[in-house]
């Protein structure tokens, strides 16, 4: 069953006086439990597409149905609330709150959702253990390696129980060991918990792990293939 349906999505930006077509009619669907990578050269529209699906930016035309909701039509207030309850984000630069511990970073998003203290604390510990950071829950981001920080970011993204997780170049700043660890954790979560992951990436190691690879060029899908596992 598809959880995301993208129809004829178009977006252009003005660069000086020239209009640049970042997305030029994208049609895609994503099913529950997918582990998909969006690849393509720089400027192909990967990040723009992820921003549209994540409700961080508005398309010029087309629709993005997440479940029954067209996120392109939500106003700013509803969109923030929708993101909080439906979408998990993992960013290239980790983007953890530096003054909070790993535990507090994971707990914070549940605090925004209004989850009760006991419940959110229990879940934060469970998630950090699931990403292999059970021993580092009280460490601040500055005391963690890049790979560990990105695992905290994955735990934070999962904390809100989203319908899917969008990861924008999650391994771009990681070494190969950290990348392998992170991908193993995400693959395990996908396999065991049926968590849907959608990546934008340049990283071949991510592409190799993906179960579906979507290739974008000049704002259009030029290839969309499922990999047999």
């Amino acid at each position, binding site marked *: 069953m598809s959880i995301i349906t993208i129809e004829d999505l178009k977006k252009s930006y003005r660069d000086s006086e020239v209009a640049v077509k970042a997305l030029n009619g994208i049609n895609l669907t994503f099913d529950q439990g997918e582990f998909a990578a969006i690849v393509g050269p720089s400027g192909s529209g990967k990040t723009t597409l992820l921003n549209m699906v994540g409700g961080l930016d508005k398309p010029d035309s087309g629709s993005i149905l997440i479940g029954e909701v067209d996120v392109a039509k939500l106003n700013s207030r509803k969109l*923030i609330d929708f993101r*909080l309850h439906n979408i998990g984000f993992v960013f290239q630069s980790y*983007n953890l709150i530096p*003054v909070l511990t790993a535990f507090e970073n994971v707990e914070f998003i549940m605090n*925004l*959702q209004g989850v009760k203290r006991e419940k959110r604390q229990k879940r934060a510990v469970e998630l950090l253990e699931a990403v292999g950071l059970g021993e580092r829950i009280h460490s601040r981001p500055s005391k963690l390696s890049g790979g560990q920080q990105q695992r905290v970011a994955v735990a934070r993204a999962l904390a*809100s129980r989203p319908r899917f997780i969008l990861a924008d170049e999650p391994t771009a700043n990681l070494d190969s060991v950290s990348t392998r660890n992170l991908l193993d954790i995400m693959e395990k979560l996908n396999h065991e918990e049926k968590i849907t992951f959608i990546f934008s990436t340049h990283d071949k190691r991510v592409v190799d792990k993906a179960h579906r690879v979507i290739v974008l060029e000049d704002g259009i899908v030029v290839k969309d293939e499922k990999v047999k596992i």
Partner: protein
Amino acid sequence: MIWIIAWKNIWRNKVRSLVVVMAIAFGLLGGVFSSAVLKGTGDQRVREGVSRETSHLQIHKPAFAEDNDVRYVIDGDRKTLVAVLDTIKFIEAWSPRVKFMAMAGSANAGTGVMVMGIDPEKERRVTDIHSLICDSCGSWFKEGKGMQVVVGQALAKKLKVHLNSKIILTFQDMQGNLTGGAFRICGIYRTSNSVFDEMNIFVNRTDITPLLAADIGACHEIAIRLKDAGMTDRVQQTIRKLFPSILIQNWKEIDPLLGMMNDFMDLWLYLFMGIILLALGFGIINTMLMAILERTRELGMLAAIGMNKQKIFSLIMLESVFLSLTGGIIGIIMGVLLTLYTNHTGINLGSLTEGFEKIGYNPILYPSLNIIYFINLTLMVVATGILASVYPARRALKLHPAEAIRNE
């Protein structure tokens, strides 16, 4: 949790935050102490003015208040009036006075003075002039010592007289005849107001009424001291209702300058602190703007994961309030300690004594402030923090999450 993040955020750049905190702290220390000096000086002047010059209330015949003519004694049923004064529970004491202008002369000089013919025992319960006669300067009136006068030090100096010297008072009696008498100086007082000291002399009412050709018991003025200054208006209204033909004035009406000082001092202090906080507010705005600029990506991330605008605004506002309040509380505590210390020791403006006394101020200042001022000041600091956060918070809310996340 937002409170915790806000508190931790202000210590991310310790040096920058400490600089702002110290600027606020020392700004408020200066403001609080200056306010305490002003307030203490003003209160002292009002206190001394009321206890030495005006008392809380004064009763006159209306015409006397207009031209101080010696003929305008309080008439009607004086006995009923003073009997009523004795029954009003808020009145601590009252003192009848004969009051008129005279020429005071010594062998060396002469000058105009205001003669206060008083009942010594009643007067000492209303004013504290009797306590301002130093040990070597004689004493308040003693019975059986003839015609005595208590003069101010400034007058004694001007007339070049000293204790036990005689001075001649010349004045008009109630029939308009020129009359006078010789009085021996039994005491020399000194207040903090040299103009008052030079102008006012005290004689026994029983000595002066025969010279004035007035009835025994005649008086131009009844000065009233209350147990609680807060009851002034109430007692004034009561007496006014009972005796509509007499003029009863409170100390603010008698000495409008004193009243204005009392009424406008608080307003002035808040205005003064408001200006200091306004200046500090710009410092806070600058710090918060820098903090937001440095945290663009983080704020973008917070918006992206679902932190709504109200919460982002609250976060920035709390940081600004915490920053202001930390500096504010340190500054207020330092200000309170300095005020308490100097209130205990006093600040002696020795070299400025003469100048201060000429304008009626005590040259030893006792800074003081009341608790309400500190509560209001704390609220003003919080308000400054909130107002200073508005512009930076609006800047934060205008960030586009997708762009902010990619900010380097």
